C-alpha cells in the first residue's frame, strides 16, 4: 500500500495542512495583520477538523478495508442520530425508527463490506426498496395517520442521506479497477475522493469570500454565491486534473470526476442548509451541546459518494474481460 504515489499524495496533503496550520497560528498570534479575527478562528477550527479527519482516515486505511467500512458505518450512525434528533417524530414512528437504527444501518455496511463476495448487488436496493417500503408499512401499522407521508418521508430521507449515500464512499475500496493496479489504487481513490470533496468545499468558500457578488439563495445561505460556485468548481476541476497521476484516471477523467465531486458537494451543502434553516438551527452541532455536528462535516460527502461510485461503474472500464 505504501507505494510511491500514495506517499506522494498523502505527503502532499500533510505538507499543505502543516503550512495552513502554520499560517493560521501566525494570524492568531499577530491579529494586526488585518484579517477579521472571527474568520481566522473559523479557519483554525476548520483546520483542526481536517487534521482529525485525516488522522482517523489514515488509521482506518492502514488497518484495512474492513476497519474503514466500520468507521464509515459509525459516522453514518452518528449522523443519522443527529438527523432524526433534529426532526420531530411522533410516538407512532418509534418502532420503525428502532429498525432503521438497529437493522438497516448496520446491514447496509455489512453488505458493502461483503460486496466482493455477493452475487447480487443487494447494497444498491436494500435501503431505497426494502427500507423504503418497510418504513411506510411499519408506521401505518402503528395506527397513527397524522401527517403520514411527511413523517415517513423524513425518516426515509434521513436514512438515504446519512446511511445509503455515505456508504458508497467506502464502497470505492471494493471497485475492481484496471488490471495491473495494486490494491493501493483503491485506497488512493478513496483518499483522492475525500480530499477533492473537502478541497472543493474550501474553494467554494474562498471564491465566495473573495469575489462573491450574486447570492444564489439568500434565504438558505447568504454566503453561497454564483461566483463562488463557478470559481470553486472550475479551480477544483483543474486541481483534480493536476492530481490525475494519483488516480486510476487519465487527466480528462480525473477532471471530469473532480467536476462531478465539486458540483455534488455543493448540492449537498445547499440541501443540508435548507433542512437546517427549516428547523431553525445554525448547525447540527448546536442542536445538542457538546456533540460536534458530524452531519455538518459530511453533507458534501453524502451527495458526492453515490454519484461518483455510479459514474465510475458506468463510464470507466473497471472490469476488463
Amino acid at each position, binding site marked *: 500500500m505504501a507505494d510511491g504515489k500514495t506517499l506522494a499524495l498523502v505527503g502532499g496533503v500533510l505538507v499543505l495542512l502543516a503550512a495552513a496550520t502554520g499560517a493560521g497560528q501566525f494570524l492568531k498570534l499577530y491579529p494586526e495583520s488585518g484579517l477579521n479575527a472571527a474568520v481566522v478562528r473559523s479557519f483554525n477550527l476548520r483546520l483542526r477538523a481536517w487534521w482529525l479527519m485525516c488522522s482517523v482516515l489514515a488509521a482506518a486505511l492502514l488497518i484495512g478495508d474492513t476497519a474503514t467500512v466500520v468507521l464509515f458505518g459509525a459516522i453514518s450512525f452518528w449522523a443519522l442520530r443527529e438527523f432524526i434528533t433534529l426532526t420531530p417524530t411522533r410516538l407512532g414512528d*418509534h418502532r420503525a425508527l428502532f429498525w432503521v437504527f438497529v437493522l438497516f444501518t448496520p446491514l447496509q455496511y455489512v453488505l458493502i463490506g461483503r460486496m466482493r463476495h455477493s452475487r447480487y448487488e443487494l447494497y444498491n436496493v436494500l435501503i431505497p426498496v426494502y427500507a423504503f417500503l418497510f418504513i411506510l408499512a411499519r408506521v401505518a401499522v402503528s395506527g397513527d395517520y397524522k401527517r403520514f407521508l411527511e413523517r415517513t418521508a423524513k425518516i426515509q430521507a434521513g436514512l438515504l442521506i446519512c446511511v445509503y449515500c455515505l456508504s458508497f464512499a467506502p464502497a470505492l475500496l471494493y471497485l475492481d479497477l484496471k488490471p495491473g493496479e495494486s490494491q493501493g489504487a483503491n485506497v488512493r481513490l478513496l483518499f483522492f475522493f475525500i480530499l477533492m470533496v473537502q478541497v472543493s468545499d474550501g474553494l467554494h468558500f474562498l471564491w465566495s469570500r473573495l469575489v462573491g457578488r450574486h447570492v444564489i439563495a439568500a434565504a438558505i445561505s447568504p454566503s453561497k454565491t454564483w461566483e463562488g460556485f463557478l470559481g470553486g468548481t472550475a479551480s477544483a476541476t483543474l486541481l483534480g486534473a493536476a492530481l490525475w497521476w494519483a488516480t486510476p484516471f487519465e487527466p480528462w477523467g480525473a477532471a471530469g470526476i473532480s467536476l462531478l465531486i465539486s458540483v455534488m458537494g455543493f448540492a449537498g451543502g445547499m440541501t443540508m442548509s435548507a433542512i437546517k434553516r427549516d428547523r431553525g438551527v445554525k448547525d447540527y452541532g448546536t442542536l*445538542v451541546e*457538546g456533540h460536534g455536528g458530524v452531519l455538518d462535516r459530511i453533507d458534501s460527502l453524502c451527495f458526492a459518494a453515490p454519484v461518483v461510485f455510479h459514474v465510475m461503474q458506468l463510464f470507466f472500464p473497471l472490469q476488463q474481460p
Partner: protein
Amino acid sequence: MTATLLAALAKLLSGASVRWIDCQPDTCQRVYFANHTSHLDALVVWAALPHEVRMLTRPVAAKDYWEGGRLRRYLATRVFDALLIDRKDIKVHQSPVDLMIREIGETKSLIVFPEGSRGTDGIGEFKSGLYYLSKKRPDLELVPVHIDNLNRVLPRGEFLPVPLLSCISFGPPMWLESGEPKADFLLRAREAVRRLKEV
C-alpha cells in the same frame, strides 16, 4: 465495575451530553430533582454524574416498574442502588419522604422526580414531597436538572430504545427559604427546571 459499565452504556445509548450551568459536581449531600420524561431518566441522570458523585447518589424510582422483571430488579437493587418507592401503597406512618431521609443518612444524595409520573407535554405540577424533604432536612442542596429529548429515546409504553441524542443540564443549587409557602416553593422549583431548557 458493573456500575461503571452500565453508566457508560447508558451514556452511549442516550447520547447524553451533560451540562453544568452555574453549578459544579460535588460530593456534598444533594437532592437532584428533574422533569420526568422516560423510564430511562433515573438511570441517565445517575450516569451523567461523575464517578465519585455517582457512587454516593441513589435514584428514587417507581417500585412497580423497576421490580417488573429480573433484569430490571437486578439493575435497580444491585447496580445503581435505587430507592424504590411504592406509588400505589403510600402509608401515613411510612411516607416516602421519611423513607428517603432514613436511607440517605449523612452521606448519600438522591435523584427525585417531583412530577411523580411522566408528563405528556411540558413539565407537570410538582408534588409536595420535595417541599417536605427540604423542610425536614434544610441542609440538603436542591439541584434542578433538566432532561431533554430522552422521551423520544424510550417513550411511554415502549421497551426498545431508539438511540437519539439527549441532553442533561444541571442548574444552580437552591434551598427552601424560611417561611416560604409550599405552593410558592414548588412553583419556584419547577421554574428552575424549566429555565434550564432555554439556557
